[in-house]
């Protein structure tokens, strides 16, 4: 029964196609709604384009341009920036003038001595 239905539907389709395109071949005008839908393959391509392809492309470009570049790479680059700024501060200490270095040594020795005397109780 089902097979019969299938075969007759197939035959009907063939006849229809022959009527439309084979017998008196002329271009079918997209004048009615049904014809327009059929000519455009039921808009399946457009539907896929809209639902799947476009969002994926947008997401892919967003990942490439924003997340990968700015967040993940940015995290690494900003952590480098942190050290660069820190190094910039330390550069001021190393100014090449001996009197400054003498001062640092004096400061360091005094602080160590104070620590030894008051915190650890060292007596001379």
């Amino acid at each position, binding site marked *: 029964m089902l097979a019969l239905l299938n075969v007759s539907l197939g035959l009907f389709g063939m006849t229809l196609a022959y009527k439309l395109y084979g017998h008196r071949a002329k271009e079918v005008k997209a004048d009615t709604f049904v014809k327009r839908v059929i000519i455009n393959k039921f808009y399946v391509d457009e539907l896929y384009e809209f639902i799947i392809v476009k969002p*994926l*492309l947008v*997401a*892919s*470009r967003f*990942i*490439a341009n924003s997340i*990968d570049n700015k967040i*993940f*790479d940015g*995290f*690494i680059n900003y952590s480098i920036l942190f050290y660069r700024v820190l190094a910039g501060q330390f550069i001021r200490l190393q100014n090449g003038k001996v009197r400054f270095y003498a001062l640092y040594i004096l400061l360091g020795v005094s602080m160590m001595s104070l620590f030894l005397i008051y915190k650890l109780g060292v007596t001379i």
Partner: protein
Amino acid sequence: MTNHILTSIIFLPLLIAMVLGVARASIKVIKVAAILSSLTILLLVIAVILAFDPNQGMQFTQNLAWIKNAGITYNIGLDALSLIILILIAILMPLIYIYMLKDNRKGYWYNMLLLQTGVTGALLSLDLILFYLFWETMLLPIFVMIGKYGNGLRQYNSMKILLMTVLGSMSMLFSILYMGYIYFEATGTWSFALSDLSSIDLSAKASIWLMAGFLLAFAIKIPLVGFHTWMAPAYGSAPTPAVIIMSAIMAKLGVYGIWRFGYGLFGANLHYYAPTIIILALIGLLYYAIRAITENNLRKMFAYSSGSHLSLIALGIFLTNIYAWGGSLYFIATHAIASAGMFMMIGLTYYRFKTVNISELGGIAQKAPLFTFFFAFFALSIAGLPGTGGFVAELLIIIGAFKENFIIGVFTATTMLSAMIYIFWMLQRVLFGEVTNENSEYSDLSLREIGMLLPLVLLLLITGIMPSLFIPYFEPQLLGALQ
């Protein structure tokens, strides 16, 4: 003989490189020696396979004292999991040498020899300090190969991979040293052997921190999403042999490390991190796949593809059932073969067209049918085409994921779909369509090139059609570990 066989497999390339280097051998001698060494290793590995008993755990072990005061030993051994990766190294190295045959830069060959020692050593070590040593050894040749022989921003990119990887391995070294110290406190002797360190009782808090140290190293090597900034630039800049080793072997060693040292040291405690890793892996699956869709550089596209599939493998390792574990192991092997083939094809594309940008390629199918066949075959096997090994592996992992949790299963299943999207679109633009490079003269594959690609094709087909040949080798060990 059986005692020293693994040692020979590890150190033969290094020994040959040293002898050749001292003797200042000519490039021809280096080529012949490198190929002979890789073939000798292949034979030795075949001997290992024949003597291997799947029902026993560690085999071919060798344990020698090395630095006695610190309890560091030369302790190596092999079980089913390391055997799989060892076979991969043994098969891929000769093929990579055939690929490199026309390259006359000596440093290139020396680095590959050193690299083979590094990856094999890291794979077979059972002492954590020894493992750490080899883990760093395999990074060095990659650093040189990208920095000296790479392309694009090669020095910047090689520094980037070095810094990222060293960050991970430093945290791992800290964990290793601390565990050694805890062992010393508990027993009064130093030891860094895996079997000793796995026996110590750790407090919950300590083991969480120690696991984090190991996992960071492995997550960067795999790389899981968030730790991947080095990946695409490094793959993009590296010469093809280095890319093949990075994608096919080194990334797999990250997963292997989770298995061997994560589960080996911490056992079920590792599941403290399971939700984190599973979520990262699921995000990675889709993140990398979507990122790959608009990538224009073929090497970078397959870097992201590699990241996506390795996330799947890492996911499988953390889903504790036999399907997921079996699938992950199987995928380690099949993805390595497929990605080695794919990166070789990308290398051959570069030889012919001097570009790997999709926008500058097109219409190859009209002129080079054999090239097209191999290119499409490897690309599709990466996407998980039924009949190739990747399909079996992905299917097993997806089944395992559904067994664990329905939602994880659904997300995992999308990976096959998403891979299809970027692979088919890429194939359409690269192989078909208009011929955009009329000027460049190019030929179809030569016999040498077919010779190095055909074994990979056959392996993918055999693993795809007859998985029952291979699964009995590792199933007993997995079942044992699950209990």
